[in-house]
């Protein structure tokens, strides 16, 4: 895999894709009902601090990626153990994204095709992506970025043009008090999607990050994407009303299905599926590459072999849940565990770095 420095624009777009990812698939912070936007804002702010910590870690030792950092600052054995656990975390996240993508395709596009076949095709395509390496992934997101932007903009414009956005649905505010908001925001919302930026600790060393604008750029992107996510999430409430938004499997899809424009632009769900594919696929690939990078570092196996092995593993893991409800339920359960990887371990590493560096 090439390790040449690339310019940061690729990383930034990948970051944006990654954050948007599959967040728009579901209605986040559903417990907060129409105050979901408050919960998301709070989670975004918390995620910002986490991101700041990750960047500070990177700045301290710019040439080392996550796995090398672990081993350097936490000792060889402990570092390796933690490295492996991160690999496990990335692999599992990747498999969750795979399952999400497979379920989405199955429910919307290919109703009768067995899930395994869809999964197989997807993992083959993504394994191919992973084989090329991080640099190519970044370049790809650069090329695809206009498509994603246009897709979402079209959706929003069409929804607005149909007068389907009823902003009054956000009232009454704080009807149920602050408690549901806090419950929704911490720790679940911080973990998904804002805390997942921990993955980029693997990618930061690959780009020319010493330029002064880099930090600002990343923060700006994070801010922009967070605003976008908050808006999109709240859009579901605006269009559907919060009771329906909670009950429907894919609220944004439901909203898109209501678009009817001049007899031709009806049933535009394919647009929704397209943008979700881009986001989900990028997340899948990013986690996959992160895991493969670590794997090849820690086991001294060739990168390509590692990609193959992990691919099979991800495929198997993705089908752990026998049905969709179980998959969603699992997601809610493991989110608590993920905070270890997103907050606890990085914090530990950060402190270790500070101590060692003096």
């Amino acid at each position, binding site marked *: 895999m090439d390790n040449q420095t690339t310019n940061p624009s690729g990383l930034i777009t990948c970051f944006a894709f990654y954050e948007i990812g599959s967040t728009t698939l579901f209605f986040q912070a559903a417990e907060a009902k129409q105050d979901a936007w408050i919960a998301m804002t709070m989670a975004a702010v918390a995620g910002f601090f986490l991101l700041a910590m990750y960047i500070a870690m990177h700045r301290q030792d710019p040439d080392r990626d996550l796995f090398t950092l672990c081993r350097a600052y936490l000792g060889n054995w402990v570092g390796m153990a933690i490295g492996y656990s991160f690999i496990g975390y990335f692999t599992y996240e990747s498999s969750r994204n795979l399952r999400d993508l497979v379920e989405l395709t199955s*429910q919307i596009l290919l109703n009768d095709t067995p899930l395994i076949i869809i999964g197989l095709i997807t993992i083959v395509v993504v394994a191919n992506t992973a084989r090329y390496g991080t640099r190519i992934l970044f370049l790809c997101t650069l090329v695809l970025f206009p498509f994603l932007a246009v897709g979402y903009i079209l959706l929003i414009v069409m929804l607005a043009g149909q007068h389907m956005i009823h902003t*009054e649905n956000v009232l009454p505010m704080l*009807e149920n008090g602050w408690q549901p908001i806090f419950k929704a925001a911490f720790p679940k919302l911080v973990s998904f999607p804002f805390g997942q930026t921990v993955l980029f600790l693997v990618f930061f060393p690959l780009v020319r990050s010493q330029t002064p604008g880099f930090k600002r750029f990343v923060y700006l992107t994070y801010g922009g994407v967070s605003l976008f996510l908050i808006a999109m999430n709240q859009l579901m409430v605006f269009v559907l009303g919060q009771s329906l938004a909670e009950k429907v499997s894919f609220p944004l899809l439901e909203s898109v299905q209501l678009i009817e424009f001049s007899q031709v632009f009806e049933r535009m769900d394919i647009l929704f599926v397209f943008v979700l594919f881009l986001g989900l696929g990028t997340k899948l690939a990013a986690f996959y590459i992160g895991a493969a990078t670590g794997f090849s570092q820690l086991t001294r196996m060739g990168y390509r072999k590692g990609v193959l092995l992990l691919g099979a593993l991800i495929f198997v893991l993705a089908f752990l849940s026998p049905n969709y409800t179980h998959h969603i339920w699992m997601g809610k359960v493991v989110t608590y565990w993920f905070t270890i990887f997103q907050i606890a371990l990085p914090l530990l590493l950060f402190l270790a770095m500070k101590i060692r560096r003096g």
Partner: protein
Amino acid sequence: MKRWSRALCALTACCLLSGCWDRRELNELGITAATAIDRSGDEWVVTYQVIVPSAMWSGAGGSGGATSSSQSSVHVFTSRGSTIREAANRANLEFTRQLYFSHTDVLVLGKAAAQQGITEVLDLYLRSFDARETVLLTVTDGEGSKILRQFVPPERLPGTAIATILKTDQETSGLTPTVRVFDVARSIYSDANAILVPEIGIRRVDGGDPKDLEGVDAFKTSIVPTKLRLLRTGVFKGARLVGWIGQRESYGINWLTNRIKNTMIIFPCPGAKSDKERAAYRVRTAKTRVAPVKSGQSFQMNVRVKSKGVLIESSCTKSLSDPATIAAMEQQIEKVIQDDIRLGWNASQQMNADLAGFADIVHRKYPDAWKQMKNDWDQRLDQIELNVHVQATLENTGMLSDTVREKPS
């Protein structure tokens, strides 16, 4: 590596050739233009109006759109089952194609089904992917299957024609609301829990027989003896039909809920000496805002209506070039709108159904007061006062600046 790529190629070839799972050729589809759901005893009776494409266009190699085709452009049949999906499944026993619901335009509810409650229907439409929630809903006083059999000349697709009638009415006169399945679903989860659904029925003209409209011969005459028409409006509380209100009342409710886009208002001329002096005002834009104000134990609803329009018909005696006349006309118009709104509101109160959606409005502004009232809101409708204020603007009088009159002889 070579082995892997060969295995992959073999696998790919298998996938591509195995005649995959989701493939549906166009000529295997039974595109349903309209569906009717009735209830008979314990069973659901579902009727489908399926399009026959080759009758619409003379398929292979001819010039399209021949109207002289003798084949009916739709095919209607019925099936029964204990659930709606079971009925659809049973349809495969007698129909060659796979029923395809994504392009259905209209859903007609029979009276029995509507009175029993359509929660199953809503569940079906929200849960399944191919049944779209944008389907327009109508209700009929009788059996829905009878409606589906009627042609609507000169359109070749009656289901689409009904949907077009509904949409056109909403756009040009606003007498009946267009309601989608999604709107009913949302209404169930909303606080007001009541919604209007237009009624469709068969009207005889000069003693005609409805059976005349069921065949292709309907297209061969220029006058038709019976017609499918929008009649009254059904009132749904929750998911049940509880009663009917007339067109004027539903018109008033439409004003109240800001659904009027373009409409026409007939109003008596200012200073009219007889009933014959009337004028017509076409509304170009209209906007209604409702704001609740707490008053005592109940609420007062301030309704503000703004409309702009032009004069399109006049038989008034007063001179139209006098601004005072125009102002007087505007006042007449405002009075008509007010009366209509009150008419609608009275009907809503009588039915104990919050058709104007006041519950949600109150909930948003006074959440605590709402919590206390929400259990018997429908009974409290009588206590709510309506304070209507209309502002109508007559922008111009058309191509004439005065009314056409006979010379006094």
